[in-house]
């Protein structure tokens, strides 16, 4: 048993920190705030290209596909540092689409898409949810019908973050209307500039943009069907453990806590240095306990996946605990900060650069995104403890 980092892991963290010191400066931080925290905008897209050039967005890909063949724990250490710096973390193209192509795509698909992803030439919006298919994803109704050498796609997808700048849609659609509902689903790669595709922006509470995308008789080359026809449900769900662990990262929480403690040490309110007040110390201590527990649950799931163990329940635990802590911790932080916590990040007087209010207003999305926490709790009870479905 060893809870510490290896020398190699420690060196890796140092390497990432040094990179971020150089490459993620005030311009990038500002751009993230303006963009609502996603990979959008020229400055952040340039930063993404620098990460791609280092090979870091493809960290876990096998070396024969141009990746670095590194572990999930290494990837988590990277994402924790990105989040701590305030950079976007989860890149669905490199972290979810590409691994599925590596696992299940044909050799031709691997040769075509993986180098393009690695060079940053293609980027995917994830088309799973529909207005009437959320937690019950298998009820999705977007269809693809084969017509000669093309699939003809009709339907609509929602919560397609990034569709306004991505090149392609990673589309879950029904290819066999008569099969049992989990068995008739395939994954199709749809160019977002194809005739018949419409993208409509949706603005969310914190200001982050997402989209609804419509497909109206969109013709897609036959070879864009990923892997095998009607096997899409497996492709979609295989990537979910990883996604839930990625959502569970705690670098942002650590940033909030460190920033909060530093602010409390430096701030006098009504004649008292905040950090010297017992009630403030108690709040900070409670947050410290929770953030450490979140970190442990998160790294535990990654360690298990690296060790080849089944970690379905553990991945759900980290997702639930971290995402609910985002709301709780940022809300507690706002109470500590008082009126100053309301300030916009562009106000130089905003404590922790407005992180508390930004995190507070983004938190609901984490809790239902990536599979609602209710579904996650079902998974813990049913797969972790064998309770009946």
């Amino acid at each position, binding site marked *: *048993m060893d809870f510490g980092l290896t020398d190699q892991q420690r060196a890796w963290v140092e390497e990432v920190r040094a990179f971020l010191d150089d490459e993620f400066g005030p311009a990038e931080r500002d751009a993230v705030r303006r963009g609502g925290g996603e990979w959008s905008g020229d400055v952040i897209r340039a930063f993404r290209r620098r990460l791609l050039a280092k090979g870091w967005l493809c960290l876990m890909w096998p070396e024969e596909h141009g990746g670095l063949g590194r572990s999930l724990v290494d990837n988590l250490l990277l994402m924790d540092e990105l989040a701590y710096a305030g950079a976007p973390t989860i890149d669905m193209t490199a972290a979810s689409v590409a691994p599925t192509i590596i696992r299940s795509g044909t050799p031709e698909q691997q040769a075509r898409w993986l180098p393009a992803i690695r060079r940053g030439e293609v980027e995917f919006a994830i088309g799973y949810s529909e207005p009437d298919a959320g937690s019950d994803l298998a009820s999705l109704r977007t269809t693809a019908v084969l017509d000669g050498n093309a699939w003809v796609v009709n339907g609509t997808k929602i919560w397609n973050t990034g569709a306004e700048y991505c090149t392609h849609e990673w589309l879950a659609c029904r290819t066999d209307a008569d099969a049992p509902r989990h068995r008739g689903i395939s994954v199709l790669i749809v160019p977002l500039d194809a005739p018949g595709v419409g993208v409509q922006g949706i603005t969310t509470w914190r200001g982050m943009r997402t989209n609804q995308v419509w497909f109206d008789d969109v013709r897609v080359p036959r070879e864009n069907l990923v892997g095998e026809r009607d096997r899409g449900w497996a492709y979609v769900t295989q990537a979910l453990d990883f996604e839930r662990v990625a959502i569970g990262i705690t670098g942002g929480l650590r940033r909030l806590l460190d920033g909060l403690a530093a602010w*409390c040490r430096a701030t006098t309110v009504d004649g008292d240095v905040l950090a010297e007040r017992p009630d403030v110390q108690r709040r900070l201590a409670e947050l410290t306990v929770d953030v450490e*527990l*979140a970190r442990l*649950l998160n790294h535990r799931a990654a360690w298990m996946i690296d060790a080849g163990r089944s970690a379905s329940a553990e991945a759900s635990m980290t997702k639930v605990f971290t995402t609910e802590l985002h709301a709780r911790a940022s809300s507690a932080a706002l109470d500590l900060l008082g009126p100053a916590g309301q300030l916009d990040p562009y106000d130089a007087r905003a404590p922790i650069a407005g992180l508390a209010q930004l995190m507070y207003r983004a938190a609901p999305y984490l809790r239902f995104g990536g599979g609602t926490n209710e579904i996650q709790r079902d998974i*813990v009870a049913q797969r972790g403890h064998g309770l009946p479905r």
Partner: protein
Amino acid sequence: MTDLALSDEQEALRASARAFLQRACPMELVRRVRTTDGEGHDPDLWRSMVELGWVALAFPEPLGGGGGDLVDLAVLYEEAGRALVPTTLYSTVEAAFLIYRAGDDGQRAGLLRPVFVGDRIVSVAYLEDGVRSAADALSTTAVVDGDNVVVDGTKLFVPNAGVADDLVVVALDPSASGADAVRLVVVPTDAPGLCRSRLTTFAHDAQHEVSFEAVRVPIDRLLARVSSNAWSAVEEVRRLATALQCVEMVGGARAVLDLTVRYVTDRAQFGRPIGSFQAVQHHVANLSTRIDAAGLAAWQAVWRCSCGGDRDAAVGGAEAQVAIAKVAAGDAYVEATLMAHQLHGGIGFTVDHDLHLWSDRARAAALTFGSRDDHLRALGSLIAR
């Protein structure tokens, strides 16, 4: 986070400990030692645990120890917590650590060997009226008088003093000040002037008031004659005993969760197992998550204590790690028992059902080695620096 697994040897130790306790520490025994005249102790079980080498496990072999480390010991504590083993195991191991950490070679050999072979049971006398952790606020005194040390004062919540043969007493030398004043004296419980009376506590574990009235012991029973070592020994041993207790508590919480999962699987209402209802499943999921998190924090604290020094600043110092673990373990164990009562309904509320045995231990253990509030206060002052 390099390796969260136990070694093959540790897994084997866990399996054999669980099998042994299922046989040797059944619930009838747990209930029997709770009775007011039971002294919280079972001599046959004690003898077996000593023979298995549990008490001596984490001490060096030349002293008659098992040559294991704290993680090995924690494996036993988790199983002991699950089975609600009488607390004599914990108080004896804690006292032995104090003797080992603060004693010289002669004291280690002379005082520990009888413990390791089961001839003597030892415990720690620390808390007093108004003192929960601050050693410099103690009022019990230890004064050197020629070839003797004279102990005066009253200790509270001394675990298992009724069956203990020796108590490691934490006291102050009034002629010194600060950390230098701390003294550790190993006092036989049959010494003239020593008086024990059992406290009546809700969990029925044996805790005593022990008063010392001019109790004289030979000076070779004064540990750590280089005085500042006594205080650092007290702090270090308190930390590792707390970390071990966190693992014990997590073991108890896991037993409660297992019991509850079995119950909601078997219990049918509305024509189906109540464990099929989402409301029930979500309670189970929440408990499971809290217990896993507390378990990780507890094992991390044990691991951190076993490293000594400042091996890895990235995961925080031992003091913070132990405080985090104690808060998490207390919360998880208490919540597990309260939610288990909710999910069991009336049947789990009866004394015929075993659940309340863990419920008592959960709340009592959360008060031992510092409450939630005490540890949050300690952690908060670390952060404020």
